[in-house]
């Protein structure tokens, strides 16, 4: 029997709304897919999971038609399983190691994780967990994937855990970055609510470094601090016309739509320009989220411009397929060199590009794109979104004396994820882990190291 594909909504219907694209396995599909598991005596899949989910055990319970048991196993290790089941690149993690994948397709671990988590959300009423408090305070900075995971594990172990968040809502990139059609906010709210029931408390509108300093947190009797403040500043290209109006960083564009709900303007106060001909520059998941969001805002054409070839795009295959199905055009081997605007109002009207060809492999192992001289051409665009990656936010690091960073501005951590300040740990983007699941893995590991550290203080 071959792998059961994830059911999804028709492309021509879904590209006009923000409702989730994948609809999830039915009970029958989940049971059938779970039964494909070979129950290897030495399961390789587990090695591929940064948050150490007991994959064979939860799939085993599913194949016994016991989703309740599967949910208990899953949630024991991962407090954000409904999120992970949706946004993890399983094909590069657990599923990559599955023995079934040698001859056939690997078992759909991600789809089964999602099924189990959604089943639990519908059928298990989470109760407040009362763990005996250790009376020790730990502060977590940032409520993204790293912070939530770290805080969840600490709270479940009895530490008084407070998450400080600069925005007005929790979730970090899961809230402002990942769109509703990939990760419904009701799912995110459900998982965060479960963390609250496990004892995690949240303090919003607090920018550590400015509102409260690290020193002040220690004075306030926090015994350890975890920094998971995420990636910060969007990268710009530094080319002519980049600050013309209706040229957004992907972070701005997605924050307006996801966090501030600009698609529902004027019911919600935050506007966003809904372009007719939209160009997105970049090739990662953020670029994919941007093209698909632009399409849903009603664009006639959405074009993805990327300097390398499609094979070098770092995004997930599923996102690429979905984007193409939804009508996004891909223009690989193309690099913008100038943005052109109207002389009167400075709105962007055109993008001048150069064609590229692939040369020798660069440091990342990918073939380096080179400009083809004289291949200049222009594309009409009334909106441009730049999804070119992020640089660490310097606010916290520059305002915290003694916190060492590397040449790229990331916090330097040791094997125990501890920074140059004793008791201050870091993980996720600010310390080098760039995907959601890497951030969660670091958050989980940090929670353990923080507990070890706190034990040495006794």
């Amino acid at each position: 029997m071959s792998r059961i594909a994830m059911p999804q909504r028709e492309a021509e219907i879904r590209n006009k709304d923000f409702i989730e694209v994948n609809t999830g396995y039915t009970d029958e599909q989940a049971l059938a897919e779970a039964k494909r598991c070979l129950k290897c005596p030495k399961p390789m899949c587990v090695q591929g999971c940064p948050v150490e989910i007991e994959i064979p055990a939860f799939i085993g319970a599913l194949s016994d038609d016991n989703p309740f048991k599967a949910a208990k196993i899953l949630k024991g290790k991962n407090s954000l399983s409904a999120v992970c089941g949706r946004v993890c690149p399983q094909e590069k993690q657990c599923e990559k190691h599955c023995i079934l994948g040698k001859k056939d397709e690997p078992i759909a671990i991600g789809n089964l994780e999602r099924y189990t988590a959604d089943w639990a959300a519908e059928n298990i009423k989470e109760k407040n967990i009362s763990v005996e408090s250790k009376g020790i305070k730990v502060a977590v900075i940032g409520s993204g994937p790293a912070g939530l995971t770290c805080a969840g594990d600490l709270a479940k172990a009895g530490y008084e855990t407070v998450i400080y968040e600069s925005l007005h809502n929790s979730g970090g990139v899961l809230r402002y970055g990942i769109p509703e059609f990939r990760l419904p906010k009701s799912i995110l709210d459900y998982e965060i609510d479960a963390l609250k029931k496990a004892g995690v408390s949240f303090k919003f509108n607090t920018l550590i470094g400015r509102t409260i300093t690290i020193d002040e947190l220690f004075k306030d009797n926090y015994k350890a601090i975890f920094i998971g403040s995420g990636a910060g500043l969007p990268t710009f290209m530094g080319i002519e016309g980049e600050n013309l109006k209706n040229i957004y960083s992907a972070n701005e564009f997605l924050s307006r739509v996801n966090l501030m709900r600009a698609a529902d303007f004027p019911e919600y106060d935050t506007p966003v320009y809904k372009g007719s001909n939209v160009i997105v520059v970049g090739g990662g998941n953020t670029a994919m989220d941007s093209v698909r969001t632009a399409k849903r805002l009603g664009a006639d054409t959405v074009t993805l411009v990327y300097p390398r070839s499609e094979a070098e795009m770092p995004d997930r295959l599923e996102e690429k397929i979905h984007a193409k199905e939804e009508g996004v055009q891909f223009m690989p081997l193309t690099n913008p060199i100038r943005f052109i605007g109207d002389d009167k109002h400075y709105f962007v009207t055109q993008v001048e590009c150069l064609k590229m060809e692939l040369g020798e492999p660069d440091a990342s192992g990918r073939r380096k794109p080179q400009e083809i001289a004289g291949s200049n051409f222009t594309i009409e665009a009334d909106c441009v979104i730049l999804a070119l990656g992020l640089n660490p936010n310097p606010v916290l690091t520059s305002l915290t004396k003694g916190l060492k960073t590397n040449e790229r501005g990331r916090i330097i951590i040791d094997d125990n994820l501890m920074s140059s300040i004793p008791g201050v740990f870091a993980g996720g983007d600010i310390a080098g882990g760039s995907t959601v699941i890497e951030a969660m893995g670091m958050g989980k590991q940090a929670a353990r190291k923080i507990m070890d550290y706190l034990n040495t203080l006794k």
Partner: protein
Amino acid sequence: MYRVVLKQKLASNITSFWIEAPDIARNAQAGQFLIFRLDDYGERVPLTVAGIDRQKGLIRIIFQHAGKSTTALSLLKEGDNIKDLLGPLGRPTEVEKFGTACIVSGGVGTAEILTVIEALRIVGNKVISIVGARTKELFLLEEDIRRASSELHIATDDGSYGVKGLVTDILKTLIARETINIVYAIGPAPMMRAVADLTKKHSIKTVVSLNPIMVDGTGMCGACRVSVGGKTKFACVDGPEFDAHQVNWDELLSRLGTFRYQEKTSLDRFNIRRSALCQE
């Protein structure tokens, strides 16, 4: 939730709030700003810190009822709450002993200079304030500014108070009269630009406080990017104060109008609903 403890109407379209926010008041300094979000439907709007009371844990904002968000904010009463308030954000004003400092302000920008004047006076500067307003009624905080400054000059567009004319006319006279070591300009972008153009001719160091469009205000989105000395800077984390002679004013003025059409839609819709409510 952040409670409004004192509301004062400073002019027909300008309101002052003292807000209970002890965490913000504790570390806030002159030149920094806040971001407010009125309610669950609200946008995030930056406003400069207009006053700090650390003992009472209060922070002051003074704002013009310009768009939908600030108009709705002005309707709050004492005891009402603002849903979200983040701050202090941005780098504080760099305060040192320059000698003679001239502070030029216009419009609602005048609300923000009091903290800067006080900070500069404390370290021993002579501070000359030049305040511009369209008309006498819109001239804010006269007593406070007069008390804080070494000298106060006033210009109104219609001559209803002080000199009839522009703040730059007064500044020109002062530059001819004595040595000015530094100029601060805070107010509408065209006014700041005019000050910058004048002081550039006389090679007087000039600092401006910029107020571009923002979303998060913490460096995440880049909406507030400005070109300073040919480089892209984020007003929220690199500013809000910059060297006035390095700012690309054409770009700044253009970007301030990014959502002019949407802002009007939002305000019109709000006003229609408000008048409908009043009639009921």
